[in-house]
């Protein structure tokens, strides 16, 4: 289908969800997860200010570099893996993300 990519989200109990995400709706990975009712809070609404959409990149997809805001937030977040950690809200759904595989990071207290 046009303007649709496939992404895989592995939830916190290890189940892989294959999702379809539109590239023409200005969505990001946090929002895609929420739209499928996966357990992603997105507390701050997508401003890279809460890390509740923290996820690990499990595929070799080439992603845009982290912004300063995202780096700052990941600096204060927990369960961070410097190689794999990203904030879902900062990963905009573009054709380049087709076949992306991510795993949701654990949530703290």
């Amino acid at each position, binding site marked *: 289908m046009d303007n649709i990519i496939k992404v895989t989200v592995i939830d916190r109990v290890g189940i892989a969800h294959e999702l379809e995400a539109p590239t023409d709706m200005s969505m990001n990975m946090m929002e895609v997860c929420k739209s499928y009712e996966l357990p992603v809070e997105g507390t701050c609404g997508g401003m890279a200010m809460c890390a509740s959409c923290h996820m690990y990149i499990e595929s070799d997809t080439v992603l845009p570099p982290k912004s300063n805001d995202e780096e700052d937030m990941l*600096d204060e977040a927990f369960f961070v893996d410097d190689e794999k950690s990203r904030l879902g809200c900062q990963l905009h759904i573009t054709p380049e993300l087709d076949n992306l595989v991510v795993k949701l990071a654990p949530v703290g207290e």
Partner: protein
Amino acid sequence: MIETDILIIGAGPTGLFTVFEAGLLKLKCHLIDSLPQAGGQCSEIYPKKPIYDIPAYPDILAGELTDKLMEQIAPFKPGFTLGESAVTVDKHEDGSFIVTTNRGTKHKAPIVAIAGGLGVFEPRKPPVENLSNFEDKGVEYIIKDPEFYRGKDVVISGGGDSALDWAYFLANGVANKVSLVHRRNSFRGHLDSVQKVMDMADNGKLNLITEAEVVGVKGEDNLKELVIKHKTQGEILVTTDHWIPLFGLSPKLGPIADWGLNISKNSIEVDTFDYSTNIEGMYAIGDVNTYPGKLKLILCGFHEATLMVQSAFARIHPDKKNVLKYTTVNGVSGF
């Protein structure tokens, strides 16, 4: 005891606009907020960010929206209890609610409107086992009085400005020994804050442990030791009197969750007829509520507040007639 008609919990945009709509019906309001200033997320999290979906404002900064709401409600002289969070609710014998804050301030009102947004902002706690056993027994998430640490051994965790600034302050002749633990080997705080801490570490006045995380807490009644995991050196034990993890704030629904309200997915269930909750006389408006079709938008919060005060009026004055009036016709007459 503070007495009012509508006690609003949360002074974000929805809570503030409630004062205006209530004022048009001659109802007085008082607001409680855990933050030291009004505006909620708009002033605390993103005051300099633009909002584009406030009708008639092509764009407005969140801080500016707060200022304008404060100006708009000024004629109705709302009361504020700021820097305190609502903790308990009791019923007075006359049917009113008594809401008490964490500092013991009591408020009495026949109507409570919860406009709590995401909840109360609390320090983020690192995921360390048994951490809660040592809270206030050596583990503190906020530095209330630096003198408390005089002559003590202190470990601070975090890489932001508050961790850097407090490490510098406490290492400067207050604490006996200060260690700063950070997961990375670089800091993202302000350059001069970073430089000051680096200089202190070079002079041996501060123990810098980077590429490391506190992974365990040990002690009997009080905290005695921290297990610190270093990226390459493995686990090390550090003896300390205090550990202060400084990882910023995150919102929690907080004590309101225990008030007997119907809650689903961290939000309060309401009837969309008047945004009433399952507790008579208690309403929930704005981001804190949920109902089929709910959208967490400021403009929806304004709408909810407007309908809610009509219902609140009928509850407070069951025998009084009330009809919708237009501000353009009648103007706005304050108290």
